[in-house]
């Protein structure tokens, strides 16, 4: 099963197996990783599952639709590789993905 590395703001690392088809958010939530809140459970309406995808992986995470882009713009500290992790669906291609978590989701 492919792996994703989540790096909390304070540097704490979590390496998790994420099933193909599962969202990067859900795996974090199921492993109680600090730094991902996901208030709406993955419906792309709350922007509290914000993460920064490592540059080398960004393109591989797929297209960002207009809704997600607008939500990202309103997060606390949006950056060029920001994504809402509920919108990143795991694939074998993403094995080894690295995401960093913001200091706060609010």
């Amino acid at each position, binding site marked *: 099963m492919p792996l994703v590395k989540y790096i909390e703001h304070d540097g704490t690392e979590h390496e998790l197996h994420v099933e193909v088809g599962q969202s990067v958010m*859900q795996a974090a939530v199921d492993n*109680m990783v600090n730094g991902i809140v996901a208030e709406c*459970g993955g*419906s*792309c*309406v709350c922007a509290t599952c914000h993460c920064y995808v490592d540059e080398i992986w960004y393109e591989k995470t797929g297209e960002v639709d207009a809704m997600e882009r*607008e939500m990202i713009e*309103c997060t606390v500290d949006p950056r060029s590789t920001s994504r809402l992790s509920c919108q990143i669906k795991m694939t074998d291609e993403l094995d080894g993905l690295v995401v960093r978590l913001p200091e706060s989701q609010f």
Partner: protein
Amino acid sequence: MTQQKCIIVGASHSAVQLMISLRQSGWGGDITVISEEPYMPYQRPPLSKAYLAGDSSDDKLALRAPAVYEKLNVNFKLGLVVTAIDTNNKTVELNNGETIGFTKLALCTGARARPLPIPGADLQGVHYLRTMDDVKAIQQSATTAKTAVIIGGGYIGLETAASLTKLGVAVTVLETESRLLQRVASEITSDFYLRLHQEQGVTIKLNTLASALTGSGSVSGVVCADGQMVSGDLVIIGIGVIANTELASSAGIEVDNGILVNEFAQTSHPDIVAAGDCTNHPNSILKTNLRLESVPNATEQAKAAAASICGIEKPYAELPWFWSDQYDVKLQIAGINQGYTDVVIRGDNSSRSFSLFYLQDNRVLAADCINRPKDFMLAKKLILQGKTVDEQTLADETVELQKLIQAP
């Protein structure tokens, strides 16, 4: 010393957050969850949306993976009903005859679908939409149904209309009021949704009261109070919910349009907390007491409840917000519009993307944002800011909403 035991009644959104927050706050005692439904915790919002439309799965619906509950060391008693709480002896009675003692009790009993007590409501093919079982039954009926009648033009009714339309069923919505979403939105938002559904082929009958369901064995139609007969081999009733407060009130816990709790989710009993759809609570931002039917309320309030159980006072005070997905339209609502005196439209309300702001004394109270996520996120800030805004600027799309938000 006997081990501390926390019993949670209910296993939905607030219960799951509560058990997680309990462990995070250092609760080392036993946690036992008792639920009348036979399923491990699942999300409710997708039931009328993606799940009904066939775009999801049981796995995706789970609130947490099973391993989470193992890590949390939580015991589940599923398919069992708590029939009584003995607040003196601090025990709960179950419908299987068991009596279990508790140190702390959390009531996460939620709400149930309001029944429609008209003739024919017990015919085959007539459903409510609140639980997984409801939706599985609807899906079953939808495989053969050609026409569906939805009684109720609120969120559930409209989301179900959208999902069934996607499944190829011809839908008619019956609404007693003069417009859709009357309980929660202004005419402008109501009109938008009327048009949206009609464009998708849904028949909407306003000012229409269902007085009986007809059929022999299985439902075949709805008789309306004005004599109209609407055919339907699938009927879904979505006319609101009733908070599950009976268990609390029977035990002498104070109840009034929900289980009464303070900002720490504490009920009138020192060892009992409550969270979610079942509570009536004070909101310091809105400066009112209210009962809220919303997932964010359930999860945030559960955190306060868990803190209270651990002897920590952590007030719950968040701005209410909601969302609804219908077809390709995302509705996000910030705040509660009760008491509004003015509305301001930002964008073109004849299009599929615009925002509607509700104002009171020139302050933004709430906003309905239709395919406008950025407006929604900024609306929350505008509301919390509580400052007066210039209506013309609010309506002016050439001025970024961000400009209206003052630097702290």
